[in-house]
């Protein structure tokens, strides 16, 4: 109960949750909220500045930027959720196996986990996206690969510290099977750090995914992905800076939201990520 009260008292968390809630709302109801069709070109009104009809102006094909940003929320959220989920599940499973069974499983898995971490994250994503191909699926896989070792390390460390605690030993003495041991006794106590890592990874995944799209290796036009919108806008940076400005604001806000949540959760649950 104290935790729940803390959550309400914590303004950082509240702001973060509001930002993400707005993004989720936009992603779900984008068809009703967006004032225009995000794909509809209007070649007589290209590069229009901010106006009543187009609150955030129009892009190089006369498309409404606000509507494109609103439509882009679903692409971004899909990538974040799938990527963190995929990397999280695989990483947690490997971490559980390594931490719970120890010995050879531990040594093998953790050495394997060192390999991706030997590369700078962005570079690994870049190389992987070349293999799996451009597009949303490629971005999801490329960004999830770096999550795997991070979740695995975290879960393994948590399990090693809970494995010897009294209640786990008691459960073992009662003859619980492995699955029950992990699911009912160990996992509930390590949810907090997993959630913190998930929100931090969420923030990084957007940055990497949008950067790849910006470089032309991710979601391709005409889809309204924020990173590729910035890439298209850079040609008109001086003449029409709003093409670059607003999609970037959308990215920053979303990342900011995830970072706030991660920060606040870390404070509330007193998690130490090493």
């Amino acid at each position, binding site marked *: 109960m104290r935790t729940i009260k803390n959550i309400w008292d914590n303004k950082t968390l509240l702001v973060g949750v509001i930002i993400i809630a707005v993004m989720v709302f936009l992603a779900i109801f984008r068809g009703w909220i967006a004032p225009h069709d995000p794909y509809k070109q209007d070649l007589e009104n290209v590069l229009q500045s901010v106006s009543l009809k187009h609150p955030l102006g129009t892009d190089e094909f006369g498309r409404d930027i606000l509507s494109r940003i609103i439509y882009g929320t679903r692409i971004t959220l899909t990538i974040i959720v799938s990527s963190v989920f995929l990397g999280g599940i695989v990483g947690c499973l490997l971490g559980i196996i390594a931490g719970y069974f120890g010995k050879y499983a531990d040594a093998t898995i953790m050495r394997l986990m*060192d*390999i991706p971490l*030997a*590369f*700078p*994250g*962005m*570079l690994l994503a*870049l*190389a*992987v996206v*070349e*293999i799996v*191909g451009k597009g949303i699926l490629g971005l999801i896989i490329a960004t999830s690969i770096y999550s795997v070792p991070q979740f695995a390390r975290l879960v393994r460390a948590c399990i090693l510290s809970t494995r010897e605690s009294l209640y786990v030993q008691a459960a073992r003495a009662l003859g619980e099977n492995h699955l029950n041991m992990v699911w009912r006794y160990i996992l509930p106590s390590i949810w907090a750090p997993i959630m913190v890592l998930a929100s931090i990874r969420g*923030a990084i995944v957007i*940055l990497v995914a*949008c*950067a790849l799209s*910006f*470089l*032309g*290796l991710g979601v391709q036009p005409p889809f309204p992905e924020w*990173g590729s919108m*910035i*890439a298209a806008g*850079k040609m008109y*940076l*001086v003449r029409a*800076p709003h093409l*670059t*400005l607003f*999609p*970037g604001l959308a*990215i*920053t806000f979303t*990342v*900011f939201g995830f*970072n*706030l949540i991660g*920060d606040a959760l870390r404070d509330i649950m007193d998690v130490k990520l090493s």
Partner: protein
Amino acid sequence: MLDQIIKRMLYLVPVILGVILVTFVIIHAIPGNPAEVILGLDATEENVAELEKKMGLDKPFHVQYLKYINQLLHGDLGYSYRTRRYVIDEVRSRYPNTIKLTLVAIAFVVVIGGIIGIICALKPDSYSDFTLRGFSVLGISLPEFWSGFLLILLFAVYLKWFPSEGKHGITSYLLPAFTLSLSSIGMTSRLIRSSLLEILREPYIRTARSKGVSKLMVVMRHALKNAMIPALTIFSFQIGRFLGSAVVVETVFNWPGMGRLAIEAIMGRDIPLIQASILILALTYVFINLIADLLYLILDPRIRYT
């Protein structure tokens, strides 16, 4: 101490071999036949097969891998499909630019991040602490390809203080290096703040304070040294970020470094060049990790590798 250092150095061998192997596997998994890329669209099947044989592409995987390692040991990175120049020459002209940019970015992080961290720790929960902390979370949240354009707009287009792109003289370093350093400034300042706050509660700090030493002096002379150790642990991680972000920032600023080389190679499907640029950036990261670990060993004698 010495055996610790040797142990850490020996660990380098499997890591380097692993990095080379992964790069090699990744490049081989990229769809497309290198022989077809070189010969272009109007090549016949016989031509392709002949070139494959000449390049050793028909050999089994492990033979190709060993051959590749052998080449690397001789400093041979192959030649670029596109420019027909030796990859090593391309790398030689680009690599120093990336390293220089990274060094300037590190200087920004140490100076600005350090100052912000100290100010926040001196007056925790004050107005300035709150504002600066807000800014550091914001710094972490900024996409580099966007903050780079904002800086170009402000400082190059409107104020005309710095050049907007390319590498011409000292002033052209400032914008890309600052873009690169923004998120690390945020991270470092937060870390220095929290570890300083922790250290300022220690008895030896109280002793110094009760002797009449001012708070700023205590921080500078006693606390900062110890607060630097946790900052050093993320130091290598930060440089890893710089090397990865180089790809993005160098594209934004048209900077002639390794990151742009990698992107140009990817766009041109120039496989030896992709391979070399990824490998060299990754190996740089491996060595940075080594240096950070060794520094760590020297600065904090309590740490031991097992």
